[in-house]
């Protein structure tokens, strides 16, 4: 399957239904969010998961017949077929409120630097790897994107096209 294909294939529910060995299963995707971020599996009860291109997983709140030949199906959600699975910024903004572990909360100036794409030194005594990054907005913590924490540093994973120098 090439990355420019417009064919979305639904993830198999479990291992037993898997035909493509490299393809993640729905169970693995839901487990990943539960184990890494503490997002309850029932959060995704109404959603289907789809792969288009190797390892690009999409989340869709609908149930079309698989495969479906379209340009977009819901939103990009997760990158698999690599050593460490990586959630997208969009997935974290949409579902990150449910996260309870591996969540790092930034102060305002740190959040602005993160969105501008800057890496920053940060004390963090939790797991290394991909973190849900939050900051306060309208009085509550709000998930802003994905950071990669390694070697005492929070590396901004905000895609180039989404980076901003915010007005404040």
């Amino acid at each position: 399957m090439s990355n420019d294909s417009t064919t979305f294939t639904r993830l198999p529910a479990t291992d037993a239904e898997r035909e493509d060995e490299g393809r993640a299963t729905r169970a693995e995707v839901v487990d990943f969010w539960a184990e890494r971020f503490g997002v309850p599996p029932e959060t995704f009860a109404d959603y289907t998961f789809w792969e288009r291109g190797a390892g690009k997983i999409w989340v869709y709140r609908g149930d079309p017949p698989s495969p479906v030949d379209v340009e977009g199906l819901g939103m990009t959600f997760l990158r698999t077929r690599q050593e460490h699975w990586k959630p997208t910024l969009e997935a974290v903004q949409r579902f990150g409120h449910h996260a309870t572990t591996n969540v790092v909360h930034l102060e305002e100036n740190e959040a602005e630097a993160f969105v501008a794409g800057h890496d920053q030194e940060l004390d963090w005594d939790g797991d290394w790897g991909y973190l849900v990054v939050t900051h306060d907005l309208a009085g509550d913590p709000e998930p802003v994107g994905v950071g990669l924490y390694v070697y005492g540093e929070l590396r901004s994973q905000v895609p180039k096209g989404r980076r901003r120098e915010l007005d404040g």
Partner: protein
Amino acid sequence: MEPPDRYRPIVDDFEAFREACERPLPSVVRVNTIKASVADVRQALAEADITADPVDWHDRVLVLPEDPPGNNWPYFHGWIHGQEEVSAVPATVLDPQPGERVWDACAAPGSKTTQLAALMDDRGEVVASDNNLGRISALRSNTERLGATSVAVTHEDARNHSLSPFGGATYDRALVDVPCSCEGTIRKNPDAFDDWSLSHVQGVAGVQKGILARAVQATDPGGTVVYSTCTFAPEENEAVLDHVLGEEDCELVDYDLPLTHRPGVTEWQDEAFDPSVTRAKRIYPHHNDTGGFFCAKLEVTG
């Protein structure tokens, strides 16, 4: 004769209309209720010292009189989307319900698509089509930023819309916000009249007829189709409705719109249209201090 002068016979207070066309519009944003409440957005904008004024006809539309809409925290989080005030009309008139299947025939760049998904509480299915891959990329990026998970995007000419990717399923409602000569956007795009030509108006009207006809065919009997343009030309508005009323199983229905407006016109130059086109609404820049717009609601009868 070119716009706006050609509309002198159908626009009341023509001088006020012409003057309004020359005034710029303020930034307007729509609150994306998929991700945030109106109260959250107002608080977040206040925290950023951005003035946001409500409008009296739509509780999810805010005017930012002093700031561009796109460089603040609420925008980055997908809590707001820059969208001209009258552009919020057609999805509101379509009134899609959670769980329904809706087609957005000319969807890019996605302001109305994401508004439909929000009105449906992001539950159901919005099939969003466009025939231009570059604009589809803008549609996809807006869909993602606004967190709409119920939108499927297809690349096709809406006149030949295929139901096959979704197993042949038809729609409960369709939004037909067609490509047009864009005269109503003159306040935002001061060059909108520069490339105007009657032949373009006539050519695009043919496309509009084909798209509206396909939308009526793809919608279930009893379902709703909303037709809208951001232009004043009767050739692209009432004449398109008149044509499709004659060709497809549908009728125009009344609806409420709490913005000052005028009814569709039944005569233009040497043409007369079906009397029911008066149920369509014309929105002029000088009545509500907005852009110009045209919006009609149809019920599928066949």
